[in-house]
């Protein structure tokens, strides 16, 4: 691990937004926005440079403080992390641009809004730190950074509903992190190391490892709002200001997923069983159906979108049963691993773009109409064509229709499902698609329906609509570099690896 090329980028990727966030505190409201915007651009630029660096150098590391693991902490930027960081940068820049216009348009409605910028940059630093982290405890700190910033952003509007939702979110986040930390404690106690790579080598199966897995998995699932722990997500995401909702859905929940994915594949392989993967799959499948159905039943746009996130995260969970190999199957012979990983990564990216666009569009609509009850959507297609188009395109990507990124994800997911012979997930995937189509086109149908009485629309800055539309288009454009992106991802060790589950009896059978 430590013989990989060293690069300053991992440290800078965390440090720079952190520094800029701190810096922005010194400025007035307007200055915060300017610093925040410039900071977003700088961070994104840095992310892209770092991405390019990884494409050329392969995995790079940064040994913090010069102390090698296990004593010290090591930042590792492999292609998977690079892709996540790059996605964060792209989506982040658009959201920042949007947020600038959004908050300026309603400057006087809440005094908390200027704090968006430092919090968002802290959040960004936390996300980058999480994607780069290679240390169990450091991961805890980063998810806490993310959690506090995310909740703070979620209650930015200061409204009652937002506060309730924020507290619920915060308590859930703390519960999740504490459960995670309990697992970390046990793992540290049984191995004396926190470094993921080292743990992958030294972790022995046993009741302690199993128990650590048992608390870490639901803990992280609470944080990523996997079914049945999605209880905090719809209220929190729906009551936050639009750019924040976009951030929360597009990026924040992906952090916990990323950790879960890394831990399962890199660390806990020794004590995982095929059935455990199936359980996560069941949770995912139920999330897909339940979330989509709930979204379909909602009557306000942001709630629809928020419930839709629950479902879309379910698709991410469906990757796990594919990664855990049945006893007797080796990773070399399992040809569905690569599709499964591709599905996961693409689902993350496509959902990030699409959901961000969706929420930003919802924000535009709220700005224009003053509310987001969908019965007032009638004739919106004629009055706000760009926004409706953005919603439509984002929706199409969520449904997974070609040629969107969501299609790429579902394609690979189904491919993995069939290749692995676990066909029983297919109905959930497709049923979710259908239900997604139902609510997306319910919106479209209303948008095209004639208005009984036309409510006056307040003007919305044109560029906000452009940003939303661009993000929606982005969820389609990401399919273009798919081949090179997958090749790039395959340079990562973890990408395409499977979890060779223990043959029988679990840890207790090995005694």
């Amino acid at each position, binding site marked *: 691990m430590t013989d990989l090329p060293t690069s300053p980028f991992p440290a800078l990727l965390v440090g720079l937004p952190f520094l800029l966030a701190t810096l922005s505190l010194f400025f007035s409201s307007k200055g915060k926005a300017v610093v925040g915007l410039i900071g977003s651009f700088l961070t994104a630029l840095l992310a892209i440079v770092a991405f390019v660096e990884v494409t050329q150098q392969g995995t790079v590391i940064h040994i913090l403080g010069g102390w090698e693991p296990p004593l010290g902490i090591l930042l590792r930027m492999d292609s998977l992390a690079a892709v996540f960081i790059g996605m964060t940068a792209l989506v982040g820049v658009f959201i920042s641009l949007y947020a600038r216009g959004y908050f300026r348009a309603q400057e006087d409605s809440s005094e908390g809004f200027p704090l968006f910028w430092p919090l968002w940059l802290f959040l960004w630093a936390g996300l980058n730190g999480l994607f780069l982290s290679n240390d169990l405890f450091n991961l805890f700190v980063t998810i806490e950074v993310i959690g506090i910033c995310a909740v703070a952003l979620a209650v930015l509007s200061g409204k009652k509903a937002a506060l309730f939702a924020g507290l619920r979110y915060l308590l859930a986040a703390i519960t999740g992190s504490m459960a995670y930390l309990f697992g970390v404690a046990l793992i540290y106690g049984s191995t004396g190391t926190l470094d993921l790579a080292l743990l992958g080598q030294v972790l022995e199966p046993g009741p302690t490892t199993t128990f650590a897995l048992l608390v870490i998995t639901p803990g992280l699932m609470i944080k990523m709002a996997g079914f049945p722990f999605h209880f905090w997500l719809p209220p929190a995401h729906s009551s936050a200001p639009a750019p924040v909702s976009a951030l929360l859905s597009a990026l924040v929940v992906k952090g916990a997923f990323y950790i879960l994915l890394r831990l399962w594949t890199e660390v806990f392989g020794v004590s995982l069983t095929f059935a455990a993967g199936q359980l996560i799959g069941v949770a995912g499948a139920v999330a897909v159906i339940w979330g989509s159905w709930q979204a379909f039943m909602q009557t306000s746009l942001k709630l629809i979108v928020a419930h839709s996130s629950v479902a879309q995260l379910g698709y991410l969970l469906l990757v796990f049963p594919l990664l855990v190999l049945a006893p007797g199957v080796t990773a070399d012979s399992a040809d569905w691993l*690569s599709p499964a990983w*591709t599905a996961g990564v693409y689902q993350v990216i496509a959902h990030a773009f699409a959901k961000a666009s969706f929420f930003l569009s919802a924000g535009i609509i709220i700005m224009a109409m003053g509310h987001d009850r969908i019965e007032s959507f009638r*004739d919106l*297609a*004629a009055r706000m*064509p760009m926004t409706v188009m953005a919603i*439509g395109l984002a929706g*199409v990507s969520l*449904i*997974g*229709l*070609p*040629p969107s990124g969501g*299609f*790429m994800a*579902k*394609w*690979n997911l*189904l*491919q993995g499902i*069939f*290749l692995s012979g676990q066909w029983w997930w*297919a109905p959930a995937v*497709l049923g979710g*698609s*259908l239900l997604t*189509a*139902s609510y997306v*086109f*319910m919106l*479209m*149908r209303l948008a*095209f*329906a*004639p208005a009984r009485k036309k409510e006056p629309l307040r003007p919305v800055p044109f560029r906000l609509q452009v940003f939303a539309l661009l993000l929606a288009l982005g969820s389609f454009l990401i*399919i*273009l570099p*798919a*081949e090179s992106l*997958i*090749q790039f991802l395959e340079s990562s060790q973890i990408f395409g690896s499977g979890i060779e589950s223990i043959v029988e009896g679990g840890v207790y059978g090995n005694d």
Partner: protein
Amino acid sequence: METTSFLPLLIIFSSLLPGTLILMLREDQSALRTFLNLFGAVAKVGLIAWVFAGYLRGEEYGFILPLAPDLAFVLRVDQLGLFFASLSSVLWLVTTLYAIGYLEGGKHRRRFFAFFSFCVTAATGIALSGNVITFFIFYEFLTLSTYPLVVHSGTDKAVNAGRTYLWYTIGGGTILFLGVVALFVVAGPISFGQTEVIASLASVNPTQLTIIFFLMLTGLAVKAAIFPLHGWLPISMVAPAPVSALLHAVAVVKAGAFGIIRLVYDVYGIEVAEQLNLLTPLAVFAAFTIIYGSVRALFQDDFKKRLAFSTVSQLSYISLGVAITGVLSSAGAIVHLVHQGIMKITMFFAAGNVAETYGYKKISELDGIGRRMPLTMGVFTIAVFGMIGLPPVAGFISKWYLGLGAVEAGSYWVVLVLLGSSALNAAYFLPIVYRAWFCEPEHEAAPLRQIGRLETQALLLIPVIVTGILSLAAGVFAAMAGSPLSIAREIAEKLYLL
């Protein structure tokens, strides 16, 4: 594969680009919009003609854009694809003209024409797709680009129709998706025409292949409006006449039927399909749809609804032809793709003309309309005869081949179905003709529009006459080199020589 050429891509872009540009125009820039539209339409016809000529010279055109490992966006030109592309592009040109006249002064024309262009983009994309995945991409694109057209008028009825349309098509698309992925998993990336891949697998896992076949078939059957998945088609007739034309003749239902042709001939291959006994259910369902659609049509008083149920019935001829093995029935199926298109588009144009000029939407109102709109109703009558299967209109040719093919294959019951359908066609179409020509109107109505010296506006009249003449010519000159039939025969013969 063959040399990469951007011509196929250009064909796609010849309507995609105008569509996008139109979307960016302002609503009132109608001259520029019309120019873009017509330019795109003419360019597309020209390009396809050019490619067709090149293809006949033996040149090969293909365009590949790799998306992911084993997953490529492939456009490839083959005869069947060109055949369908020609149909779509020519009819699109005609329909564009018609739509310009039809929607004159209407609302949301920018949106309409943009999606109109997207729709035909998808149709040509389907035609030129080189593999299953590309086909699927365009297939779904078609679904989406048609939706704004279906709900164009924005009435509650239209919007509800759009909902039903989407339920069916998205549902079908989902099942098709399942099939496509499963096929990909079982057989790897399959280009159209690579039937040997499936052939080599047919003995290994026949059950899987059978299931996949029916999954894909179900998905395609939605657009091809095979019972019981036809429900969206009659409901969608609330759309404006040019859209109905597009739905029923140019793009949507044709995409489904074309997909079935591709599935059977170019993915599975006839031998495998026979070997696994896949075609009998298709034949049965298609046959039932033919009769069912006709019976339903019999009870409709709404002009367009009757036409819509007629489409349900007529379209299944294609599937039926595919389901019967033999050169003749295959040729019949393939040629019906075109014939049904030109005849049905004529009918919808005629219905649209009547509705636009006099406001008549019910068949019971059509007494004596033939006297007032002789040209429109004249070509309508021609199309009716074609639908019944009477010579020398195009419909006869396809029915002739289908019947002959059925007899050749020993499927005598199919002949009975064809006969029954002909009788029913006569039963529901001839009353229209009868009312138009041989009944006296109860009261003289004044036209709704300024119609000038012609019986209706020129832009409404010319397209219908053109398609009417085409449907007559396709029958009369069927044996001529370059006629739809001759091409279809060539395609079919190639299929069976392989």
